C-alpha cells in the first residue's frame, strides 16, 4: 500500500510518528534542560558531597601513602617514615593554609584533632631534618595516640561512608561499624521523632479533615463552594502568615492564654505552655497541612454515589453500619492519597518547627539546616538530607502507585 507521495504507507506512517515524537521532545527539552541544570544537578551534588572525602588525600598525600603499611591493630604509633611524610605534607599545607580545613574535617570524626593540627601547624616550620617522630611527639601528645592515626588512616580514601555512619549514629572504630554509645546517639532519635510527629500530624489531619471533606462532598454545590473558600483561603495564605498567626494565638501572653485567664479558667500564674514544644508544632502544622488532607478526600468522596448508602439503609442497615461497611471503604483511596501527601510534606518541614518547635519539637530538617549554616559540617548535612530524601521518595513512589502523579489536582 502506498501513501499519496508514493512511499510505502508503513514507512510514511513511521516517519510521521517519529516526527511527532521529535516535536514533543523539542517542546519538552528546554524545561527538561532547565530543571536538570537548576534542580537535579544540585541534588546530585548533594549525593556526591555525602560520600566524597578528597580533602584528606589531597592535603596529606604522602602521609596517606605511607600509612598504607601501618596496621592500627599493632598497638604501636606509626614509624619514622610516616612522620617524615607528615612533616613534608604539613609544611606544604601550612603554606597553602589548607591544614585547618583538614583539621576541622577530621575533627568531626575524632574531637581534638583540630587543635592538634592547628598547634602543630604553628610549629612545623621549626622542624629540623631527621628524627621526625620524636620531634612530633614532643610537639603534641596527640601524635602518640593510636586513635588519631587510625582516624587519619580511615579517612584517607577518596570516598567515605563516614558521613552516613554518623548520620545513623554509627562509627567505624577500626573493627567494623558500630553504634555509638547511647548518650551520643542523636540522629536516629531525631529521625524517629520526625517520623512520629509526622504520623501524629497526619493522623490529626485525617481526624479533622474527614468530617469536613464529607460535609463538603454531601452539601448542595452552592453551599459547599462557599464553605470550600474556608479551606482554600488557608491553603493560599503564606506559610509565614499562618505560622505567625499561631505564634500570636499560642504564646504565653497570646490570645488563647489571655482569653482563658479572662474567663477565669486559668490562673494568671500558670498559663499554658503551648509553644516551643511538640504541642505547638503539632497544632500549627495540623492547621497548615489540613487542606492537603481535605482536598484529596473531597475529590474522592465527590465520586461516591449517595445511592449506595441509601440502598444499604433501605436494606436495614443502621446509620453506622451503612457508613462503616458501605461508605467508608469507598473513601479509603482518598484517605490513602491525603495521608501520604500530608506525611510527605510534614516529614520535610522546616520553617514551622523552627519557629514554634523549641528544642523538643524540631525535625530532622532543622538539624540539616544547622549543619549547613552553623556547624558547617556539609558532608553530614548532605548525608542526613540524602536519607530524608530516600524516605520521601519511597513514600512518593507509593503515592504514585496509589493515586498517580498525573491525577494531582491543584485548587
Amino acid at each position, binding site marked *: 500500500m502506498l501513501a499519496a507521495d508514493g512511499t510505502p504507507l508503513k514507512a510514511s506512517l513511521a516517519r510521521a510518528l517519529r516526527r511527532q515524537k521529535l516535536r514533543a521532545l523539542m517542546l519538552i527539552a528546554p524545561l527538561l534542560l*532547565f530543571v536538570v541544570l537548576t534542580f537535579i544537578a*544540585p541534588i546530585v551534588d548533594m549525593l556526591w558531597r555525602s560520600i566524597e572525602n578528597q580533602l584528606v588525600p589531597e592535603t596529606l598525600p604522602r602521609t596517606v601513602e605511607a600509612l598504607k603499611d601501618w596496621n592500627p591493630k599493632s598497638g604501636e604509633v606509626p614509624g619514622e617514615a610516616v612522620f617524615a611524610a607528615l612533616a613534608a605534607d604539613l609544611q606544604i599545607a601550612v603554606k597553602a593554609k589548607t591544614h585547618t580545613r583538614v583539621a576541622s574535617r577530621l575533627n568531626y570524626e575524632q574531637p581534638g584533632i583540630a587543635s592538634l593540627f592547628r598547634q602543630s601547624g604553628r610549629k612545623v616550620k621549626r622542624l629540623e631534618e631527621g628524627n621526625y617522630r620524636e620531634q612530633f611527639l614532643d610537639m603534641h601528645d596527640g601524635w602518640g595516640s593510636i586513635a588519631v592515626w587510625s582516624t587519619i588512616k580511615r579517612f584517607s580514601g577518596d570516598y567515605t561512608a563516614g558521613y552516613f555512619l554518623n548520620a545513623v549514629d554509627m562509627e567505624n572504630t577500626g573493627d567494623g561499624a558500630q553504634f555509638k554509645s547511647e548518650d551520643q546517639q542523636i540522629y536516629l532519635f531525631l529521625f524517629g521523632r520526625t517520623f512520629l510527629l509526622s504520623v501524629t500530624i497526619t493522623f490529626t489531619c485525617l481526624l479533622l479533615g474527614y*468530617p469536613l471533606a464529607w460535609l463538603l462532598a454531601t452539601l448542595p454545590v452552592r453551599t459547599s463552594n462557599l464553605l470550600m473558600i474556608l479551606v482554600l483561603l488557608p491553603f493560599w495564605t503564606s506559610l509565614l502568615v499562618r505560622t505567625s498567626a499561631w505564634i500570636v494565638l499560642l504564646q504565653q501572653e497570646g490570645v488563647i492564654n489571655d482569653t482563658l485567664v479572662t474567663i477565669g479558667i486559668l490562673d494568671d500564674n500558670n498559663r499554658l505552655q503551648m509553644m516551643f514544644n511538640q504541642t505547638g508544632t503539632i497544632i500549627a502544622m495540623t492547621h497548615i497541612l489540613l487542606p492537603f488532607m481535605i482536598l484529596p478526600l473531597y475529590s474522592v468522596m465527590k465520586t461516591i454515589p449517595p445511592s449506595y448508602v441509601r440502598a444499604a439503609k433501605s436494606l436495614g442497615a443502621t446509620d453506622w453500619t451503612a457508613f462503616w461497611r458501605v461508605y467508608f471503604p469507598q473513601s479509603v483511596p482518598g484517605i490513602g492519597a491525603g495521608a501520604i501527601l500530608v506525611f510527605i510534606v510534614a516529614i520535610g518541614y522546616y520553617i514551622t518547627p523552627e519557629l514554634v518547635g523549641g528544642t523538643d519539637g524540631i525535625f530532622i530538617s532543622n538539624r540539616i539546616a544547622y549543619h549547613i549554616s552553623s556547624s558547617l559540617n556539609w558532608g553530614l548535612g*548532605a548525608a542526613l538530607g540524602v536519607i530524608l530524601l530516600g524516605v520521601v521518595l519511597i513514600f512518593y513512589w507509593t503515592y504514585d502507585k496509589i493515586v498517580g502523579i498525573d491525577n494531582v489536582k491543584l485548587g
Partner: protein
Amino acid sequence: MAGLPPYASTGQRVWYYTFRFICALLFLFLIIPILVIIPLSFNAEDFFTFTKKMLALDPEGYSLKHYRDFLTNTDWQNALYNSVRIAPMATLLSVSFGTLAAIGLSQSHVPFRGVIMAILISPMIVPLIISAAGMYFFYSRIGLQGTYWGVVLAHAALGTPFVIITVTATLVGFDKSLVRAAANLGADPVRTFFKVQMPLIVPGVISGALFAFITSFDEVVVVLFLGSASQKTLPWQMFTGLREQISPTILAVATILVTISILLLTTLEYLRRRSERLRGMTPQ
C-alpha cells in the same frame, strides 16, 4: 446529608446537629488563625494580643502605626522591593518553559514520558530543605549563591511543576479536532497555536502562573540559604522578625498578604468557571 428526613429519630436529630456543630468548630479552627491577625494588626500598642481598649472597641485602641512602620521602615521596604523583583521574573521563566513542556507532554506519543514527568515534577516532591541544601552546595560552586539570578533560577525551578500540572489539566479537556479543523481551513501550526489553542488554554496558563508566583513570593527556605542580605525577601524578613525582634509590623504585613491571597483565590475561581464555561461544562 442533604437535610434531615421528616422520619428521623431523636437520636438521628441529635447526631445531625452535633455533627454540624463539630464541623462548624473545625471550620473555625481553619479560619480563625487567619482572621485573628487582621484586627491585631491595627493594635495601637506593640503587643501581639488584644488590649482592653481594643476589646472595648475604643477607637484609641486602634491605629495604623504598624502599617506606617511597614511603609517607612527601610528593612521592610527593601524586602518588599526584593520580593517584587524576584517573584515576577521567576514566574516568567516557569511559565514560558512550563507551558511549552506541558504542550509537549500532552502529545499522544511522548517517548520516556514517565521518566520525564518524574524529573519535571521532582521540585514539588523533594522537601524544600533538601532542595535548599543541594542548591546551596551547587550554586556556591558555580558562583550563583548570593546573587539575584541564583534565587530567581531556584524559584523558577520550584514553580515549574505547578505550571505543568495546571496547563496539562487544561489540555486534557482540549478537543484535538479543533486543531485539525484549523489546519483544514488552511492555518499553519503557529497560527493555529495562537488563534485556536492558546485562547483555550490561557486560563490554565494563568492559574499556573499564579501558583508559580505564590510559590516564589511565599518561599523562604531556599532564599534563606541561597540569598545574601541584598536578596532578603518579605517572607525572609518575616522569618527573622518572628525569630528575633517580634514586632507587630509582621501582623500588618501578614494582613496585606492575606488580602493578596484573597484576590488570588478570587481570580483563580473566576478562571476555573470561565474555563469550564468555554469548554461547555456547567460551572460547579
